[in-house]
């Protein structure tokens, strides 16, 4: 056992206080200095700001302190506050410790209000390494051990770059149940000066070459990313709002004079949406996805990067979808449901669930192969089946679709609306305008339900639901024939039980010797 995962208590990177809160402190000092600029200039270059003989600048607090002979007390107080802050940061750093044993990862933190968070390693849902721009410059990274639940992550902020990479490998190895000794952790043998190391770390590819094939399986083309963003629902709704506002003003209120004011009120909305879209483009420009022995690794971010490793069996459902505007280019997007969720203001909860922001159909299959290993891999049959799931319609040997009478409630999609039960997964295909294929791996099914309201009852139609952990995908299908739905319920319930019994993915490498 080497490195930080040796079961002993360790401290975080010494620069942590600076990165976590010290920056704000420096900023405050900066503001104070900026406000006292004239006084400082006066000190060093007398007569430049304040002509000799004039009494200026004596009415600010500093002038007051100096004039009344409180200079010593003032300085002492300032020094005291400074020392208190520095001591506070230092103690907080000293008391923030973590340890990783064979079973758990534990973090103790806080000075007055102590927290002690403990997470079982076989329950981890993923390990993420985030590098905000500032932390990147200092060669540090934030490691998050993701466990199931809302905001239940165990963050280790901040660690050195090499340390965080090594720790991620160790945590995943311990969690995997693999009895193989620590894979010769290549520290990268960083040579050269500190500056050289920083620069090479800053420019290094997101994927550790010793752990993953260096090539991402999907290449993000900037044109495609920008195009897909422009053709997204957000942009189009913005255009619709604009058009509605303009026509409304011109025709209803009557007069182009009013138009100016309407446009003015729309500017904030437009700015908000535009910045959201620009952020999306920047975030996914350096998107990468690759397979590692310990699961899928997804990286994104241009300046502030984030890199998530999701071990096998931690993906609770997958949805491949395509809006009608993306259809001419055959672009698709893939989202997943995961048991670890984050509420955050910067929209990282959304990033957390997107595994393919936009990609061609081939990209879709490459990514599906990673996130649902074994589903696409076993020959061309499944691929062909998935093709039908993506864009096909009509009943066939695998898909059971809605009956004709369902056209009353599924105007366009009744031919397409259907399900298929494979040995390893339940496939739900729906939507003719907004195509979606939801795939739920059977070992992850929590429960199965069928529902029928009065209208459906009159039409002998039924809703089916496959319950998985909460997320952007809710795998459900409406307007199925009652008999088909009953069959679905029976088969899916049996498949879920059988799959859960044989699933070993919570210790995904325990069979390795």
């Amino acid at each position, binding site marked *: 056992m080497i490195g930080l995962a040796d079961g002993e208590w360790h401290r975080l990177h010494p620069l942590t206080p600076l990165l976590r809160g010290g920056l704000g402190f420096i900023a405050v000092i900066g503001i104070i200095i900026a406000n006292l600029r004239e006084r400082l200039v006066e000190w060093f270059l007398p007569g430049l700001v304040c002509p000799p003989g004039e009494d200026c600048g004596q009415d600010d607090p500093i002038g007051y302190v100096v004039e009344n002979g409180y200079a010593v007390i003032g300085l002492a107080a300032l020094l005291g506050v400074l020392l208190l802050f520095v001591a506070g940061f230092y103690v907080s750093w000293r008391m923030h410790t973590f340890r990783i044993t064979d079973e758990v990862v534990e973090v103790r933190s806080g000075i007055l209000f102590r927290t002690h968070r403990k997470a079982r390693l076989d*329950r981890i849902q993923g390990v993420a390494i985030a590098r905000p721009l500032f932390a990147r410059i200092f060669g540090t990274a934030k490691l998050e051990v993701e466990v*199931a639940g809302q905001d239940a992550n165990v963050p280790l902020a901040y660690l050195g770059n090499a340390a965080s990479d090594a720790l991620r490998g160790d945590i995943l190895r311990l969690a995997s149940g693999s009895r193989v000794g620590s894979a010769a952790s290549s520290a990268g043998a960083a040579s050269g000066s500190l500056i050289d190391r920083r620069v090479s770390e800053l420019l290094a590819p997101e994927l550790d070459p010793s752990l993953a094939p260096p090539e991402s399986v999907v290449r993000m083309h900037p044109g495609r990313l920008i195009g897909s963003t422009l053709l997204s629902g957000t942009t189009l709704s913005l255009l619709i709002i604009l058009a509605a506002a303009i026509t409304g003003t011109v025709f209803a209120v009557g007069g182009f004079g009013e138009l100016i004011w309407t446009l003015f009120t729309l500017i904030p909305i437009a700015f908000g949406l535009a910045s959201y879209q620009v952020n999306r483009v920047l975030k996914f420009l350096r998107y990468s996805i690759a397979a590692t022995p310990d699961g899928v690794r997804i990286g994104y971010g241009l300046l502030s990067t984030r890199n998530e490793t999701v071990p096998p069996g931690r993906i609770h459902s997958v949805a491949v979808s395509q809006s009608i505007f993306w259809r001419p280019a055959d672009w698709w997007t893939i989202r997943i449901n995961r048991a670890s969720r984050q509420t955050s203001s910067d929209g990282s909860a959304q990033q957390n669930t997107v595994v393919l922001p936009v990609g061609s159909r081939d990209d879709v299959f490459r990514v599906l192969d990673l996130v649902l290993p074994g589903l696409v891999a076993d020959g061309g049959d499944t691929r062909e089946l998935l093709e039908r799931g993506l864009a096909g319609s009509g009943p066939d040997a695998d898909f059971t679709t809605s009956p004709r009478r369902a056209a009353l409630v599924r105007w366009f999609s009744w031919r397409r609306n259907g399900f298929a039960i494979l040995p390893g997964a339940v496939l739900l295909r729906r939507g003719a305008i907004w195509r979606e294929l939801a795939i739920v791996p059977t070992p992850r099914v929590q429960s199965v*339900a*069928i529902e*029928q309201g009065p209208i459906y009852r009159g039409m*002998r139609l039924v809703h089916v639901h496959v319950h998985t952990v909460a997320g952007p995908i809710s795998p459900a299908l409406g307007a199925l024939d009652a008999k088909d739905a009953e069959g679905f*319920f*029976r088969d899916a*319930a049996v498949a879920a*039980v059988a799959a859960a019994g044989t699933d070993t993915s919570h210790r995904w490498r325990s069979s390795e010797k």
Partner: protein
Amino acid sequence: MSSIDPVPGDWQRVSPKYVVVDLLGILVSAIIFTAGATVPFWVTREPAWLIAPAAVLVLHLLIAAFTPRRVRALGYRLRDDDLVFRKGIMFLRVVAVPYGRMQLVDVNRGPIARAFGLSELKLVTAAATSHITIPGLPETDAETLRDRLVELAESRRAGL
């Protein structure tokens, strides 16, 4: 027209006393909401506004009229590997939860149900949408069922 029944067989029914509990609950809700619906009338003194409390009252009477059937429609079954629960006549719902997926089992007692010696059993899985609540179980039944379910869940423990 026969309602959907994906797993034909004998369903365990809840206690018939639950009809009374449910009716009392509806009565309380009827009093509160009917009184609340008279507010527009008191404010405006327009007799036309009396339609609102009347409508609320009729709605509650309708719900109450169906209560015996609705309670009879509640059923659960312990199969080999999962628990199946069904409810509803107008809005029918059938759920199957594998034992290994249960994260916790709750037994709750409301004030009215307690007076009748009844409990409510709640099952929670990792999916928020699974929610299963079996009302109207006699207290001892609820506790044996809970212990049985916890035992079954423990023996079939799986990852998330």
